[in-house]
């Protein structure tokens, strides 16, 4: 097992950041710690790195106990949201930092740094200073710097959080490719469910310092353990006590099966997908996701009366609906 975290608790004064959290990240996997801000995901990552001291619990990296080992000796590579670039050093010096600390030979350092800069596509930038790089380039430099010392595990704390949407998308694809290439056990912290689903083999969904569910992206989407998971992973409508995905709502012009009447309030064209906002007879609101083709076929327009049928809906036992993000 790459990383094992057992019963970790951490408080900041009165605030409970983590409560009895246990997680495992299999060797070579990419695990995402996903959750809203304040859910404890970053704290957990920092505890694994030794940057934050847990109040309770144990940490193992490749079955070696690291609970009380200082960050210098944990064998982790850490990438920060805001890069944490050494501003007074060139790109080369940044990447070489860990190797210099380990007193490697100059020739070896030069060779290794060149190799890494190629890997992160920054060859030719070695003499620049971080201030002369774009955000995306800085983060790739930070990744090369973390990888230089050949860490046993790689910890990424919202690595794309400070970048704009387009660069984020690019780096995401690039990171996935890189991970396939180097296969280092990785934990990624993110609040973006799409990012987690696109990158991770396993998602650990956290909320209020606790784990709500662990599973593959598909697993979490299809078999959410509770309302929180259902609402956080993918869009959702709430109807009474049950929850329904917008793509599980079928719209027709005529009555069919157990359909109910609804009125189209709004239509939003989002490229391939069309978002249809509806209100039911009893005053409840919901939105459905249809394709452009369906929308034009049905001749949907504002104020039109249609019939909707809900294919799958889910109801959960104990309600935590208060913590559900608004759609």
């Amino acid at each position, binding site marked *: 097992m790459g990383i094992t975290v057992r019963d970790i608790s951490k408080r900041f004064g009165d605030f409970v950041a983590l409560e009895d959290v246990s997680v495992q990240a299999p060797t070579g996997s990419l695990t995402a710690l996903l959750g809203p801000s304040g859910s404890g995901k970053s704290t957990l990552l920092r505890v694994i*790195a*030794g*940057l934050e001291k847990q109040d309770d619990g144990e940490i193992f990296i490749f079955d070696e106990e690291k609970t009380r080992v*200082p*960050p*210098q*000796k*944990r064998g*982790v*590579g*850490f990438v*920060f949201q*805001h890069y*944490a*670039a*050494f*501003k*007074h*050093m060139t790109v080369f010096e940044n990447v070489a*930092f*860990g190797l210099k*600390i*380990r007193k490697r030979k100059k020739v070896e350092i030069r060779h290794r740094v060149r190799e890494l800069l190629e890997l992160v596509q920054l060859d030719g930038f070695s003499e620049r*200073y971080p*201030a*002369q790089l774009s955000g995306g380039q800085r983060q790739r430099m*930070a990744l090369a*710097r*973390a990888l*230089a*010392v050949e860490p046993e595990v790689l910890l990424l704390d919202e690595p794309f959080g400070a970048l704009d949407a387009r660069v984020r998308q690019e780096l995401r694809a690039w990171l996935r490719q890189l991970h396939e290439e180097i296969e280092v056990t990785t934990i990624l912290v993110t609040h973006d469910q799409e990012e987690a689903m696109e990158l991770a083999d396993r998602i650990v969904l956290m909320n209020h310092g606790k784990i709500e569910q662990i599973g593959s992206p598909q697993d979490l989407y299809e078999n959410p353990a509770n309302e929180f998971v259902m609402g956080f992973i993918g869009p959702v409508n709430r109807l009474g006590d049950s929850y329904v995905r917008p793509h599980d709502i079928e719209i027709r012009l005529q009555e069919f099966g157990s359909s109910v009447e609804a009125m189209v309030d709004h239509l939003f064209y989002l490229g391939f997908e069309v978002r249809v906002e509806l209100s039911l007879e009893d005053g409840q609101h919901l939105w459905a996701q249809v394709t452009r083709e369906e929308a034009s076929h049905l001749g949907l327009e504002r104020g039109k009366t249609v019939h909707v049928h809900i294919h799958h809906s889910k109801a959960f036992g104990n309600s935590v609906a208060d913590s559900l993000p608004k759609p």
Partner: protein
Amino acid sequence: MIARLTLRTLALGYLALLLAFPVGMVFVRTFEEGLGTALEAVTRPAALHALWLTLLVAAVAVVANTVFGVICAVVLVRHNFRGKALLNTLLDLPLAVSPVVVGLALLIVYGRTSLVGGWLAELGIRVVFSTPGIILATIFVSLPFVVREVVPVLREIGTEQEQAASTLGASAFQTFWLVTLPAIRAGVAYGVVLTMARAIGEFGAVSIISGKLSGRTETLTIYVEDSFQSFDLVGCYAASVVLALIAIATLLLTNLSKPREEY
């Protein structure tokens, strides 16, 4: 347009009238009787000794207060402890207390009849009316500058770079030496300039603790006063010019040692 011109004239006029003009007059008076006379005035043994003593005292004060100042700033910004507010207030004491009072206080503590002074005298160390006393007084009055310059810089750079260094294997000392210190060097440099300027210019505390012994415990500022009192105007102006030149040199040195491309 007129408003901007007025503002500019006001700013420049203020500087010219209150700063440039008086300092310029000192230069004019110094060289009024020729370069030779001025040179003769500053190469007299008493003047040279005062210059040497001033540089020595300033150097010691700068080194001591830089080391202490950086440590103190790190403690203030990175540590949390009881009495932090007290330390913070104490640091400004040298700015608030008049140098004359500082001189008197040192005289009380280190004078021959006092406990500490008597004990030191038995060891053969003379503080009052001698160089150690002048150094102590100068350190006291120039103490806050490095701390006050470094604290905001340290706060601004945050802890992420330091944490990154530690995950890369750097020890606490390596992190400080290779990451923190280079990141705060602009603040340190400016603090050093201010400390230097304050140390060279100190008069009040030194005039009390030094006893103003010509050729022995006279710093440049004391020498200026001494020659003024004895109507040696050229000597007085020439020594003032030397003081001004040291200050200008310090400023230039800092500008030269500015970091390369960063922001």
